[in-house]
């Protein structure tokens, strides 16, 4: 179970990495950004939240002095869905710009 969860988390980070590279590629080619940067934030948050949950479930000692790198990773990412525009803002922007949804009620 632990290995399959770890494999899934890796695949989520790979997805977020690829969507982020795509944003960089768009900048390099001077392609106007529809909302790809917002979309890669959404993908990254899903991966980060899964990894934080994994750390707590399978290596909880890392949060009590067992591993400072992992503890720092956890602490830094506690506000990952808030900083730089909340996850809800990212979702709103993509809904509007990429999917052509109307302003929400």
């Amino acid at each position: 179970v632990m290995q399959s969860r770890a494999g899934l988390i890796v695949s989520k980070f790979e997805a977020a990495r690829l969507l982020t590279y795509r944003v960089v590629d768009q900048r390099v080619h001077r392609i106007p950004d529809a909302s790809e940067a917002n979309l890669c934030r959404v993908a990254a948050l899903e991966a980060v939240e899964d990894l934080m949950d994994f750390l707590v479930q399978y290596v909880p000692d890392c949060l009590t002095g067992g591993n400072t790198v992992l503890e720092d990773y956890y602490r830094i990412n506690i506000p990952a869905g808030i900083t730089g525009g909340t996850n809800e803002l990212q979702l709103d922007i993509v809904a509007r710009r990429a999917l052509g949804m109307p302003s929400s009620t």
Partner: protein
Amino acid sequence: MNFQLTEEQSALVGAIQTILQDHSDIPQSARVNSFWFDVKLQSLLADNGYLNAGREFGPLEAALLVIEAARIPAVVEVAASALVAPRVLGDVQIESPVAIIVGHQLSRPHRNLPIARTALVDLGDDIAVVPVKADNVESVASILAYPYGRFIRVPELRGALRLRGQGSKLRHWWRVALAAECAGAARAAIALIVDHVKQRHVFGHPVAKFQSVQHRLVQCHMMANSVHYLSLRAAWSGLAYDADVAACYAQHHVKKIVVDLHQFAGAMGVTNEFPLHLWTYRLRALQTESGGPIESALDVARNRWNAEEPPRQTAASTDTRTEVI
């Protein structure tokens, strides 16, 4: 890594889009079926050389075609013929359409078997290439949106062409193909539902105006985009690790995409008249193939941490050894 298609790739995608556009509808008489196999389109793609894209261009171009073909409501078999077969067969020519079958489950129903002319049978280490005779296959009714069928008499594998040591390569490219097919089907299904929620009104507003709906559809959109690029990366790199990642991500997220899209289609979404099932029940079929999400996730983990480095199995490698046993 280059995210922009070359001129040649753009032309290839544009050309198949033009053909698919003419086949983007299904006949009225087939509207309530769980799937519709477009025989004419299958022949058209074969006759015009699209199923040879994997040989004439490469796996990335073949994956682009798989994604495009998965976006139409009708079923055509492109993934196994154009993407998988050229990678594992080398110069061996076979008749399409192609079904991919797990060797120790020969008597079970198999996807695409009723339309297949050739089956690639995964025997673990090896592959058996088995011609499929129509009179030896019986169709099996299923809610899954592909033709399913089982052999009436289980084929004799001893006389079949056997590709030694190609089993892992078959499973590798099967994963790339199923991820690409998931990407196309998911994108088409999401487009259908985005359009639906913009037009359907509840409580005096279009459904699309509700933030709870918007956010879940954006998450589906993100997942479909991720599968799209992960599958193309896997086709481009030829690495088994990339194939495992693409399949793992695709198969894991099928549940979320299928559940949310049917939720936002409301009662219409549980009827066969509404075409959503033609894509979502393809996704459900693909979700369990080539080991399913658990096995692909385990392979990602094994590749990532147990192996010294990801296997360098390149797309160009076609060192196929063949023999008849």
